[in-house]
């Protein structure tokens, strides 16, 4: 699904990612944990194609194709989805129009016909139920005036609409109360198939009680320094990030 080899990336001349290696196979759930500033969100942004980051070395293939040479919208159409840590408010663009445009772009790319209006609205209704999103939110401008929890639910709602192959959830749990966290995690789990993969980026182990990972990676100072099963997250929770820092410095 996704293969990252020796990925280096920097912003304004400062290197953030210092040689990342990662293999994600179809159906797998990977968790990437790490202290603040370790490069977790940068990795997500680089994979999605945010152009403020410069890739200085390494390669990334997504479903066998070179990911890094593609535009962000091409990556999305190929099935890469990023749930943003800070979803952007877009005043004046309604959720419905935004989703209609996005879904039809993705369908066009897959060689499928555009959805008829009535079919689109039906899909919209079904997916809204999945993430228990307030019906009225889709009539409003994208994320405008949404609460923190609504914004995160809205990300998962969009994920449900677009049916990606690989979803990267960047700190989806931050700012969520326990009920919203459960709803968001349930949404992700319901969307899980044996073919699609998920990368969960998180600071805390909490989310991983709900979205159970196959592999846990610890990112520290721009590198993956430890990988293991889901128990690694529990160790981390018990010992804190200082444990990793000490181990690295030793």
């Amino acid at each position, binding site marked *: 699904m996704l293969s990252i080899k020796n990925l280096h990336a920097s912003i304004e001349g400062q290197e953030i990612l210092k040689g990342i290696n990662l293999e994600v196979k179809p159906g797998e759930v990977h968790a990437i944990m790490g202290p603040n500033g370790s490069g977790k969100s940068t990795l997500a942004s680089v994979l*999605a*194609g*945010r*152009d403020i980051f410069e890739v200085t070395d390494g390669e990334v293939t997504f479903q066998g194709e070179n990911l890094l040479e593609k*535009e*962000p*919208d091409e*990556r*999305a*159409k190929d099935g890469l*989805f*990023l749930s*943003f840590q800070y*979803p*952007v*408010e*877009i*005043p*004046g*663009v309604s959720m419905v*129009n*935004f*989703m209609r*445009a*996005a879904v039809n*772009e*993705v369908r066009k*790319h897959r060689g499928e016909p555009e959805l008829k209006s009535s079919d689109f609205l039906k899909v919209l209704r079904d997916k809204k139920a999945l993430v228990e999103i307030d019906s009225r939110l889709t009539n409003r*401008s*994208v994320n405008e005036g949404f609460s923190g929890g609504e914004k995160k639910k809205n990300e998962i709602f*969009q994920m449900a609409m*677009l049916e990606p192959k690989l979803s990267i959830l960047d700190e989806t749990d931050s700012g969520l109360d326990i009920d919203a966290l459960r709803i968001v995690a349930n949404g992700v789990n319901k969307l899980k198939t044996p073919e699609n993969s998920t990368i969960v980026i998180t600071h805390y182990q909490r989310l991983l009680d709900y979205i159970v990972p196959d592999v846990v990676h610890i990112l520290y100072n721009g590198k993956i320094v430890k990988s293991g099963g889901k128990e690694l997250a529990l160790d981390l929770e018990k010992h804190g990030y200082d444990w990793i820092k000490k181990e690295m410095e030793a």
Partner: protein
Amino acid sequence: MTDLNSKYNQLIAENLEKVESHSSDIMNNGRHEAKDIFSKKGIPSIKNEDYKYTNLLPLYNQEWSLPDFNAPMPFTNIDDIFRCDVPNLDTNIVLTVNGQYYEFQGDKETLPEGMIIGGLAEMSKKHPELVEKHLFKQASQETDSLIALNKALAVDGLFMYVPKGAAFEKPIQIVNLLLGDKPLLTHKRHLIVAEERSHAQIVICDHTLSAERFFDNSVTEIVVNEGALLEYYNIQNQHNGSSQITSVFANVHKDATFHTSTISLHGGLIRNNLRIALIGEGAHADASGLSLTDREQHVDNQTFIEHRVPNCTSNQFFKSVLDEKSTTAFTGRILVQPDAQHTNAYQSNKSLLLTDEASSNSRPQLEIYADDVKCSHGATTGQMDDEALFYMQQRGINSREAKLLLMYAFAFEVIEKVKVEPLAIRIEDLVNKRLRGELSRCNNCEIQCH
């Protein structure tokens, strides 16, 4: 006196008699005085604070002729012309050609009883008492010499009188056409009187029908009497080789509302002066504007809202999207007189710059002489939000479409203020096409847009 000013003094002197003979006594009244005022003040340069952002001298320096006031209608099939404006808008259409009333094309049966609509010159002969009561009462030639120039040279225009309590089945659409085979300098004068508790919707469409250069200076005086609601929309879609200065003066009486929106799509240089006086308690003004500019277009909106009495409200909302080397300016003056307690006045001006070469100036001017008022203004000039663009691209929308969606969203806040639904839909379509760089003009226009 500069050469330029003497050139125009001479133009007035040479044509005054001809202008008078094609106009009416009421319109001719004060022409000589206007000529003298213009002669004294001359054409405003950019040293004049009111024209700081719009340099008219290169335009006035070009060679111009006045239109032939006797010219017969130079096209045969009139239906080809107005269809291009707002095709699905069911309106009663009034045409002016080169500043003169041409004809009413609509169903007179659908007009309210007592409604008067026609050429200002002719109507001021038929209804002298109505015209005389309001004409030249608001547009001050003392403050702007171009108003004096208009008064000296305008032969005709429209007179529209909406009787007490009248309501319309259809909006009135005023189509101002410019055409000729040489560069024309045109002047027209409109007068609109909405009597007590009436409700009228007026749509103004400014068009050029030949590729020649045009320079139009039009002055519109509007009276909105007690309890009346007047909606006044202007779509500016002349070709980029032509220029226009429009000045609208509206007096709004007790509990009356004046609602206006100006959409500037094409036109080389556009200067819009909007002067609204709230003169009766409970009066309300809503003024908005949207300009979409590219190439070397220039659009300058200047508003002046005067709160003269207590308990009035005004909202201003002006936006521009600028591409290539185009420029826009906004000057918004709000004057709250000492008596005008409990005034609520709001003003907003936002510009979206698509290139580094485009530029926009914003100048709010608040003068408040009453102490119990709520006045606020805001101005922003910015570029496209990169984070929003990336967010949209991450959902599969390509960069071009994402930009269009953002521009469209930016423009939509003004479009939604248009309350005539078919017109709003048509404007939406025009704006969409305009933003996509497609021809936003009619299919029937024979001339190519520059």
